[in-house]
């Protein structure tokens, strides 16, 4: 069995992440990680009529850049696994249709980048695919209109609210030789601790992140210092603080080696994003840009990417249901 412990999968053939690509909006480019992305859309509409079309185009652009960077043709890609936040994942379906690549549509809310990497890694490791692309996106404007209020509505945000990242990230997982491999994955469980405030997704998702990360360490039986970087997707300031404190209580005190993409991508003080960034595109663009380049340069050798998702819908919110959280962990190491 290529499985250890409770829920961790060992990828014995070490599928490699041979290339990544990222596309972001201007606000993200103006943030702390500006310059680490492949392409910046200066106009939020990206020349399209609707925000949804802009998001699709952004995801399409990310895959196009990825194929170009990896010097691959569409026909060489066996599968593409992706999703986004919009109803029925329309951002992805409309964005990827033209590629003519067999497609796994995924919904894991903001955890989708890790989920798609899990699927990609398993297809390649199992010998079902030579090349699989993992891709996700989110767009501030399309998310606002679906989950919250019209853009021009005059409302106030609470301090725990987060700002959806306009961005897309894609990674090519391959059976070719390479230095950066996915060694283990720990798919997470749905964890619901009863948080109901849709403006406090960090607190809603943190228990899932804690559960997945601590399970991953137990399953692999590794020391807390094993990874050079432990990364969560979009917990923001509050979720990060909760996760850090609770993991430390369980003997996993990562100190400064634990970061959250939502806090990395924006400058929390000057960019008016309250608790930080969120959305599928947050973890995706930070991983595809900043973190992958750290791995490539050898500045870090082992990283645990734990993308987190809040699995609520507008219907469940209006019906007074709490917000179930999820987190999937992907161990990426230089080999």
């Amino acid at each position, binding site marked *: 069995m290529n499985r250890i412990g409770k829920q961790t999968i060992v990828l014995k053939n070490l599928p490699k992440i041979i290339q990544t690509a990222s596309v972001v909006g201007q606000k993200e480019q103006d943030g702390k990680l500006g310059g680490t992305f492949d392409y910046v859309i200066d106009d939020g509409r990206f020349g399209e009529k609707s925000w949804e079309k802009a998001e699709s185009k952004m995801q399409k652009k990310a895959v196009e850049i990825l194929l170009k960077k990896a010097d691959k043709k569409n026909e060489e890609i066996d599968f593409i696994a992706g999703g986004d936040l919009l109803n029925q994942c329309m951002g992805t379906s409309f964005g990827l249709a033209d590629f003519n690549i067999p497609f796994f549509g995924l919904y894991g809310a903001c955890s989708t980048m890790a989920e798609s990497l899990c699927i990609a890694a398993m297809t390649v490791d199992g010998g079902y695919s030579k090349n699989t692309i993992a891709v996700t996106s989110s767009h501030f404007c399309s998310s606002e209109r679906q989950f919250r209020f019209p853009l*021009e509505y005059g409302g106030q945000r609470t301090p725990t609210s987060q700002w959806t990242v306009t961005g897309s990230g894609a990674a090519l997982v391959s059976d070719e030789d390479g230095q950066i491999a996915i060694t283990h994955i720990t798919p997470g469980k749905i964890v619901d601790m009863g948080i109901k405030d849709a403006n406090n997704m960090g607190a809603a998702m943190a228990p899932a992140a804690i559960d997945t990360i601590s399970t991953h360490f137990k399953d692999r039986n590794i020391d807390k210092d094993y990874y050079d970087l432990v990364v969560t997707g979009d917990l923001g300031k509050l979720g990060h603080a909760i996760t850090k404190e609770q993991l430390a209580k369980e003997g996993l005190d990562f100190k400064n080696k634990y970061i959250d993409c939502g806090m990395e991508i924006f400058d929390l003080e000057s960019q008016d994003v309250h608790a930080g960034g969120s959305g599928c595109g947050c973890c995706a663009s930070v991983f595809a840009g900043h973190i992958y380049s750290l791995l490539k340069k050898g500045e870090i050798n082992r990283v645990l990417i734990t993308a987190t998702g809040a699995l609520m819908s507008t219907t469940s919110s209006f019906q007074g249901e709490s917000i179930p959280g999820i987190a999937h962990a992907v161990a990426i190491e230089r080999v």
Partner: protein
Amino acid sequence: MKMTKKQYQQYAESKADKSKLWLDMFNAFWIGGLICMIGQFFLNTYMNLNFDKEIAGTLTSITLVFASALLTGLNVYDNIAKKAGAGTLVPITGFANAVVSPAMEFKNEGYVMGVAANIFKIAGPVITYGIIASVLSGIIYLFL
């Protein structure tokens, strides 16, 4: 993590940054007050133009609603509201913004299923309960 749901909710609540209540209230007070002062200025102006008080009041409302709708269309209103909170929400300007912003947002879905179907998405509950409240108070008034 060994916590019950209730314990966790209290724990998360205790760690969360709180809204700056006094600052928010101060901003709501002076911006809301300023909007009312602008309203009063228009009311006085219209009365000086020899409109009687009732018509001048109606004209004042129309002016404020127009200004709010225009500022919403120019992408300015939400930036003021971000600071003002209830200061821009409570006056009639907030209602205009609540109608214009969905009308703008849902243009992509067409004029029937988009704009028309969604224009009262935010203001609808106010209208519904406003009518119910006025009917109830009318009935009470009838018997007094």
